């Protein structure tokens, strides 16, 4: 056991744990953040996805001690209780069936849209391809991503300028 410092969703934590402990178990069992899920423990399905340094990463295979930057989990997307446009799009499009994978779908999409606000259909398929869903909600996920991208574009300062102009 050793002391590990983690910053998650704006909060700093110091934890006394085995350094090799995958981040997933620290988030879920020590910090009570259960948006990220255990799906495979192999980095194959995406259920455990969190965002670190702007990238969607698989917390089930990431040693907690290796994480030096702030971690954002699903719970961190709506810090003031106001849903992120992706989350709202997920409700508007009624995306989930069981919903167990949707943490991974939403967080992977978030990292994608942060880097590429206007992804093409092909880019969405490619970026999302490693994020699995056994209920097969994929078609809705893709539709919801496009809806959220439109919402984000409408909210961005550039687009407001365009409207004014």
């Amino acid at each position, binding site marked *: 056991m050793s002391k590990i410092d983690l910053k998650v969703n704006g909060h700093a934590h110091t934890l006394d744990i085995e350094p090799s402990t*995958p981040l997933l178990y620290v988030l879920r069992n020590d910090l*009570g953040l*259960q948006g990220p899920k*255990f799906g495979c423990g192999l980095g194959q399905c995406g259920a455990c996805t969190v965002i670190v340094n702007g990238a969607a990463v698989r917390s089930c295979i990431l040693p907690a001690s290796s994480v030096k930057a702030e971690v954002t989990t699903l719970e961190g997307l709506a810090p003031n209780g106001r849903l992120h446009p992706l989350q709202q799009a997920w409700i508007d499009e009624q995306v989930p069936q*069981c919903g167990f994978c949707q943490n991974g779908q939403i967080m992977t999409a978030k990292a994608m849209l942060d880097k590429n606000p206007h992804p093409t259909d092909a880019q969405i398929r490619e970026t999302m391809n490693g994020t699995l869903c056994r209920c097969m909600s994929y078609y809705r996920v893709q539709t919801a991503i496009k809806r959220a991208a439109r919402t984000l574009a409408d909210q961005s300062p550039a687009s407001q300028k365009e409207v004014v102009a």
Partner: protein
Amino acid sequence: MSVSHGIPKQIEELLVTNRRGFLRNAGLLAVSFGIYGGAGLAEANAQSTASAQGPGPYPDLDFRQIDSWIVIHENNSATFYVGKTDPGQGTGTGFRQLMSDELDIAFDRTTCIMGSTDITVDQVGSGGSTAMERDSWPMRRVAAEARRVLLQMASTRLGVPADRLAVNDAVITVKADPAKHVTYGELLTGKKFNVTLNGNNVNSVTGQAKTKSIPELKYAGHAAHRDDIPGKVDGSTKWAADVKLPGMVHARNVKPPYACAKLTGIDESSVKNLPGFIKVMSKGNYVAVVCEREEQAIRAARQLKTTWEKPSTAPFPASEDLFKYMRAATPVPGATPTVAGGPGAAFAGAAKTIEAEYEIPFQGHTAFAGAHATADPSNGQMTIYSNDMKSYGMRRGVATFLGMPNDRVRVTYMQGPQGFGRTAAEDAACEAAWIASELGRPVRMQWMRDEETAWDTKSPAFLVKMRGALDAQGRLVGYEYNARSCDYNHLGYNEPDTVLIAQLMGQRRARPAAGSAALPSDMYAIPNRRMIGEVVGLPAVWETPLRTGNLRDPNGPQSAFASESFIDEAAAAAKADALEFRVNMIKAGTNDDNGFRRARSLAVLEAAAKKYGWQPRPSPGPRGTGKILTGRGIAYSFRGQTVVAEIAEVEVNRETGHVWAKRLVCAHDCGFVVNPESLRTTVECGTLHGLSRAIHEEVRFDTEKVTSVDWVSHPTLRHADVPEQIDIVLVNGDPNPNRPDLPPYGAGEASLKPMLAAIGNAIHDATGVRIRRVPFRDDRVLAALKAAGV
């Protein structure tokens, strides 16, 4: 009553609103789902001395009491309690729509609690797409009766006969004097209904009131957002996987490395110095490791040294030899053919005879997360937190397995990764319960990915031989369907003697379940038919990862792949259009059943064809010359009274063998649609599940073990596979589509059934090559194309 942090919203509502002692035994308050507010382990340990549950017992609820189903709160809202579970198709929202209508209360003033054995009546849970078709009726009748009783109470209170009262949104008003009114909440304050209903069983329970006709429904029949979705996208839903209990420990299984292996030794010294190690639990061939923390249990289970003896004979053939094995195997005796007309004479006099044989491998449940459950043995009770869709069966199964009385066991249903039938969630629950009862501490059990994929229950492999006799006019006049299903010892739900831990501990049922091999589901008027479904078994039926159990319409996708591929082959042999060939065969019949399944079969085929823009021509179409070959395929079937026609348009890459379903159309008729919005998503996902089974899914094994252990070795559909366009057409093909008593039928399973055949038919249309084996993986398709010189 303070709000306990992290408790599911529904449970919280039920605890903080006026429950008037209804839940005095529920004891859910000390359960923390979110864990300890982020304060870390110190606080967690401090809480570990708290008691997790009350002293019980948990007797069955009386389904003949309105109070078991409906609670009206003083603030004029209502909570519905139903013995159902909703694994993600939106049935819970549908129940609220139906019950809100019958009770006459605003939908947004209601909540629905499902499938927890101590607070909801036993309606089994879910399964077979029967939620709306069968199980919505008793709850509707109870809600209608509750409304009638409230009207009587208002009549007394207001001194006005009930027929001079009106109800709107749970407010009862004197029609002639709207200033005089009383709310449901005001009528019931401090009181239960205390009204006894009639009925010998939960399915027949009824009061005096009649349910409403369809035109009277305000919520049912209209789109409603599912109430479970917001929590699933903001992270607030608390899942069965999230349950944390004071003093809880983590368990992981150590599975036998081979099927039917005998445990010969455990070297506990290999793990006893690991941090957090508590105990190795073992009996017979069952082995698990228990640790304080989750990652410690995972490590210890991997590190524990065990020795095993292989069985003297191979438990099963390797997957590449499965169909050869099934062909040669002796079927379980007792199957009898279904015969119509004189098939022998029809074949003897045929202008043309066609034959084909279809192969469908074992396909896995492979739930998205490993099976899991948490068991709490405190206070002499056993509470299981599980996502299994049949909580009541789990209660009985666990009670019997542990030798506890039923009323000392309860199962709290919570959300989980998709439950499509008899999943390993049931195995995990018995394992958690056994370890918890032995250890005296709450236990969280979770299967790892390799266990889940290798050891979950499988959908049975099918081998189907078919023959057809065409007359001189190209009509199918003779038909033979000979199915063999590898399904002996098909596992039932929550059987205390067949759950995996019971098998590994040495329990053996005297007579394993016979299994089944379903016949096709169609309305074709083929005058001479002979159909038989036989079951064969593998050499090993116990302690084997190749165990079969219900997976979403357990035999449907297999039988429909064979039968609807074969109809396509017959159409091609007759040089007829695949749609017209089907329609003509249905029209050739004259009898319909009381659900008008024949008329509705024609309606879905017509609706699918219209949506797709189907142009009549024989298959295959003219083959393209480029790298990508395009084709279309149609297939149709029904599941119960729900009728489905599907059209797939595929692109086949002749250089790689890759198949992409570019467009899918599903025309779906399930009678009265309770919530068109959630039905569309459910049908869409079912259609894609069919696509996944058509192009990806297959369990592989050698002669010792299952070698499909993850998402690479048992692949599933991915984002890149998703069609460019999916059209769901909700058809109502009833001859009187506006009839006020149109019943709702099932949905969920029906849409995946014809898809395997639709894809195979489309591949044939595109390439001229008929592939009679799923899944249509790149290498298989490429080999078939090469063999045919395409």
